[in-house]
């Protein structure tokens, strides 16, 4: 049970990192950025050659220093490239539709997602790609005879740090406050002299960069990736963002972890004749959660219900 929880926590941290990007973009321009999951996949793909170069995988024992430097550099490169991609998407595909009815950017976002996904397919083909091994997995004993691996600790720690950093940035810095101001009333923010376009670009930059950095962690934890990995992962992450309350950073974290734990739990259900039932059904379960949350508590767990003003 504890092991399922730990696995869920680690998995959930990954969802949470991706969910942060959805929640920020939705918070500021009320758009479900369908392409976000694919940006994430792009991040995994660009990290692979970087790690291949930095870490000698034929070594039986990779030195911790080498691991750390490799992972760090890969995260920075991936974050940077994903950030640029995110900003470019916003600039080319969403910004021209800033004032269009909401359906238009949403449809565009689906189109962008298809384009990126297919580009990734053309680049890496349709099969699953192995992620380079970057550190020696070590198991530590944990509560009740369960174990926790250093990879799991890394994933959880990175996610928590990202969330705290983002939370501080948005709530404590002036730029973060300007970001919230833009989210609350774009035109009033413009009247204050805030460069709205730049703030929105910055939001995409941060959200995508987080996904890029998270992508490296994902590779280490899951170790296989396909061109369409980001699509389902993105849907689950979006579900996480909705569960937590879209637009809410802490909510994204909470939602991500909840979804992770649920998946990890469901995945292990079923034995004997119904062995593997959980694995077969867990996406149905996640979507059912999405529907239930949206129907019964559309503001999510941490969000506040806002009534439309008339």
């Amino acid at each position, binding site marked *: 049970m504890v092991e399922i929880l730990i696995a869920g926590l680690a998995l959930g941290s990954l969802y949470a990192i991706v969910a942060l990007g959805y929640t920020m973009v939705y918070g500021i321009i009320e758009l479900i950025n369908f392409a976000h999951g694919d940006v994430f996949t792009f991040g995994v793909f660009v990290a692979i050659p970087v790690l291949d170069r930095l870490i000698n995988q034929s070594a039986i024992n990779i030195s911790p220093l080498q691991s750390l430097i490799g992972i760090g550099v890969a995260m920075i490169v991936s974050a940077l490239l994903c950030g640029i991609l995110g900003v470019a998407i916003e600039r080319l595909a969403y910004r021209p539709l800033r004032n269009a009815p909401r359906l238009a950017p949403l*449809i565009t976002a689906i*189109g*962008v997602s*298809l384009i990126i996904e297919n580009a990734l397919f053309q680049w890496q083909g349709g099969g699953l790609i192995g992620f380079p091994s970057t550190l020696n997995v070590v198991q530590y004993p944990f509560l009740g005879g369960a174990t926790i691996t250093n990879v799991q600790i890394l994933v959880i720690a990175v996610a928590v740090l990202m969330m705290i950093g983002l939370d501080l940035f948005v709530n404590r810095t002036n730029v973060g406050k300007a970001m919230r101001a833009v989210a609350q009333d774009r035109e009033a923010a413009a009247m204050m002299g805030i460069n709205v376009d730049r703030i929105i670009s910055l939001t995409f930059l941060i959200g995508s960069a987080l996904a890029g950095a998270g992508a490296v962690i994902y590779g280490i934890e899951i170790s296989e990736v396909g061109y369409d990995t980001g699509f389902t992962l993105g849907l689950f992450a979006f579900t996480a963002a909705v569960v937590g309350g879209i637009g809410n950073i802490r909510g994204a974290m909470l939602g991500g972890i909840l979804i992770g734990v649920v998946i990890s739990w469901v995945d292990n259900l079923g034995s004997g004749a119904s062995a593997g039932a959980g694995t077969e059904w867990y*996406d149905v379960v996640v979507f059912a959660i*999405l529907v239930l949350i949206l*129907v019964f508590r559309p503001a999510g767990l941490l969000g506040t219900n806002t009534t439309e003003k008339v």
Partner: protein
Amino acid sequence: MVTPSWRERIDHWRDSRALRRIAAVVVVIAAFLYPLVASSGTGLDTATVAEVFILLALGLNIVVGFAGLLDLGYAAFFAIGAYTTALLASTHFAIGNQTHTSLLLSYGPNGVHVNFFLLIPIAALAAALCGILFGAPTLRLRGDYLAIVTLGFGEIVPKVIENLGPGNSVGLPNITNGVNDITGIDSPPNINLGPIHWTFQTNDPRPWYYLGLIIVVISVIIIYRLRSSRLGRSWVAIREDEIAAAHAGINITGTRLTAFALGAAFSGFGGLLEASRLGTVDYTEFLFNFSITILVMVILGGMGSIPGAVLGGIVIAYLNQSWLTNAAAGINNFGGWLEKGPGLIHTLGVWLSGLPLASAKPMIFGIILVGIMLLRPQGLLPSGRRARELHPRTAGELAEEDSELYTVRTGEI
């Protein structure tokens, strides 16, 4: 007050009723004559696929174009229609050891076989019913949430089909045959009406084509009537201002649900045609990508436009079935020819001959979606009203803004 631009004049001319009617009649006559001039069976096959696509586009257009609801899981209803057909008109369900036969239904060890014409309402109703069951709790949601929920629905349905095959993990009998598909689906019975003698066989696309054509023509007429009815007016009103519509006495959820169910019914209908034409169903055909393909038809033709949906269905069907493959071969061949050249030309040739165009369909669809939204959001054959709504900022809206922009948020809590 405002002098019409050329584009507006053209739109107006296109809006003129008489002209539209003439155009429609010409198109229908041409469609009926087409098999006489179609050179090969494959061309007619594609046309038959196009008919199914048109049905799907017409149905999704009710949901997306008329009611303004983005449905990203529309293929699920197609799956439901197709599987309803597969379960009720094939050798799949063997019952007892004696065959009972009647005009509308026969069953026995050779499976359940419901008459094709009885299946028409059944498949449509099954899809509509699923639409209602799913839509009733979710249609209250705002547009983008609804989109993601429908996407989820679109993922769930094939998953359920996959997981309810033989020896499934939840202990149910084999319902859907799972990953094995269902084969041996009945064709429609032969039709002999005066000069018409249709035998539905796989080697002759003509009867299929005419059957599809008749269904499409009837559907178009039905949808035109719906659009100009009280219900159609309610859809527009809700799309334009939900709150005002509710206060005018329109039941928002009910009206949306009608759109959703009608759209689903057309999709189920399409599923029936497709399943009986192919004689087999495979759930992997009904995934997200297919939902998006249908969406591309609607967007390309123009949201809310009936001629647009027809055009979108035709274009995407031909793109899917032949144009893309032909174009890919052509470009690759051209590249092979260039390869013989020197230096840069050689490099270009190598690139072109290796260009994996055939696998780039999603990318092409993506480019269509983005391109249309950025350059011509109203689509190729726009509906007048929808075009105005979709244009980022019309003069009228901006003028309105002058008086209203700032008051948007002044309401009391």
